[in-house]
């Protein structure tokens, strides 16, 4: 019987700094048949420090390695940040349901990401860069605290060649960069019509962004949101990540807005 909690030790092939508090770890594949969809996650693990759910951010067709971008937010991630090239990071997964991409073919896409929330949507962006005819258009609204918190900063110019990339920072002295909360971009920029929206960011962002989207005529059925919750088992058992009738670990982390908006007496968004 397979032990669902066994991690696979993946050798760290390279490490890239992403702003002041995040790093991208490029890892050997955990096992040969490792496939994932955009928005799925793995449980990253270091014995002695526990596990945490981390979205896979590499290209969907990448067969040689996986990438995990990890922000330093607690004791496990602090310890992971101390690892070097050649060290090992434990991984089990991938788990959950990612963003539905088939429905977006030949359609406009709006990606809304806050902070480290850019990580699970990066595979969609990389997919659009490689397959320029696949989607009608790709617009990215990316909000971060300040310059130092921008993840994948050195890729943004590449993204902008194919996508309509829009950055907004809460704090900045650079007058060329938009300043404010991410919702401001909905008033400042061209918002694509009849688009499929994919969103990930801090929970506080969702309510305000969804409100903006609905005001601008988005169908609730076309809004997909990735949730972040504390998870232990990643198998829909331990209950930590439950939202209403669902488990973020297994039924999510990506949910359709229509699916969850009235799903519980507890306020989900």
């Amino acid at each position, binding site marked *: 019987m397979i032990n669902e909690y066994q991690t696979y030790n993946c050798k760290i092939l390279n490490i890239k700094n992403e702003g002041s508090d995040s790093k991208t770890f490029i890892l050997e594949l955990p096992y040969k048949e490792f496939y994932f969809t955009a928005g799925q996650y793995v449980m990253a693990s270091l014995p002695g420090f526990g596990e945490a759910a981390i979205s896979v951010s590499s290209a969907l067709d990448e067969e040689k390695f996986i990438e995990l971008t990890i922000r330093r937010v607690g004791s496990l991630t602090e310890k992971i940040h101390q690892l070097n090239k050649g060290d090992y990071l434990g991984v089990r997964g991938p788990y959950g349901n990612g963003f539905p991409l088939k429905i977006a073919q030949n359609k406009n896409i709006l990606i809304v990401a806050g902070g480290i929330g850019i990580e699970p949507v990066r595979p969609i962006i990389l997919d659009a860069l490689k397959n320029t005819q696949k989607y009608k258009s790709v617009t990215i609204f990316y909000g971060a605290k300040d310059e130092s918190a921008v993840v994948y900063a050195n890729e943004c110019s590449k993204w902008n060649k194919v996508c309509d990339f829009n950055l907004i920072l809460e704090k900045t002295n650079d007058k060329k960069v938009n300043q404010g909360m991410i919702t401001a971009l909905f008033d400042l920029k061209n918002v694509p019509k009849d688009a499929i929206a994919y969103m990930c960011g801090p929970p506080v962002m969702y309510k305000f962004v969804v409100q903006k989207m609905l005001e601008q005529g988005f169908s609730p059925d076309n809004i997909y949101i990735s949730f972040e919750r504390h998870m232990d088992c990643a198998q829909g058992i331990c209950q*930590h990540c439950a939202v209403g*009738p669902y488990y973020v670990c297994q039924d999510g982390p990506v949910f359709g807005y229509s699916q969850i908006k009235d*799903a519980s007496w507890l306020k989900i968004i």
Partner: protein
Amino acid sequence: MIFWYNMNMNQSQFKKFVDFLIKNNQVIAPQNSPTGQLLIGPIFESKDLVWDSHLPLDSWKWYVIPPEQKMFDYDREKLNEVIPAIKPQILLGVSILDLQAITLLNQVFEKDIYFQEVKKRTMVIGSSFVPDENFYEFFDKFEEDKLEHLQFDIFLAVQKKGYKVFTGTEDGQRLLDKFGYDNYQHIEYAGPIREQGLDPQMVAIKNAMANPKNKSKFDKIWQDLGQRCMQCGKCTIACPVCFCFRMFDQANLEPGQGSRNRCWDSCFYNDFTQTANVAPELPKHYELKTTAEKIYFWYEHHFVRTPQSFSTPGCVGCNRCTRTCPAEIDIRKTIKDILDA
């Protein structure tokens, strides 16, 4: 009539059977504690067995999902699986409600290697006693055709005289054969869903919980419960189907060594839904902030999520949560309020 009478295991045979079990095995059964509580524990003499419709205060989950369990030993980055070192055990006198709970746990932990290792070493002997507190309508009355939806090794259906004996597994048959009793009827487990479809009581409660029209009435129910509940977590310990757990790593004194473990958790504890903020020094997020939210989450697990995931009730009607609640929250009243909303 004579034929049926002969089919039954009589009281004298039953006593011999219990003696036989105790002599050869580790037997876990309901018994009176020195403080007068009816509790489940190892039993060494048949006279100590409490064999009636009274329900123990604690549940059988203590013996199938241990409160704390080592999952792996680690040595630097390597995790080595630790198979539970549990002796073969017989759970004797599992009431029909608790059999429903064990059947659910079998489903929930179907792919869990640690649970399955315990299950391999555990025999379950059930009885048709229905406790007075029962509010699970399906088991208001015991009927033999209900047995095909329960998982057990041996089942004793209480008759006017003695017990009618059923087996649910080959292990159960072998145990009875070894004892020298062969008047049993074998029942093949037919899965949790009955021919009539989903459990109507389960569906009614789930639909009422999920109905957005009930929101304003629910505000009153849950705010009221939230004011009374002390978040002590006793209900989660008493409940036979509260199975949530958390995982934690524990170092030992050797460099780079320790273990990865899991232990029972309670959704009433504040850190149950804790997530990190954007920086280590910032305060953590808690998805469930108020007591009302926590108690709703508990009800939602039992009456919405479990039925949704397993098509089977997530509450077996045993009323243990009411019996242990220091705030006298009565689950039967809450369910009535939900259905009346």
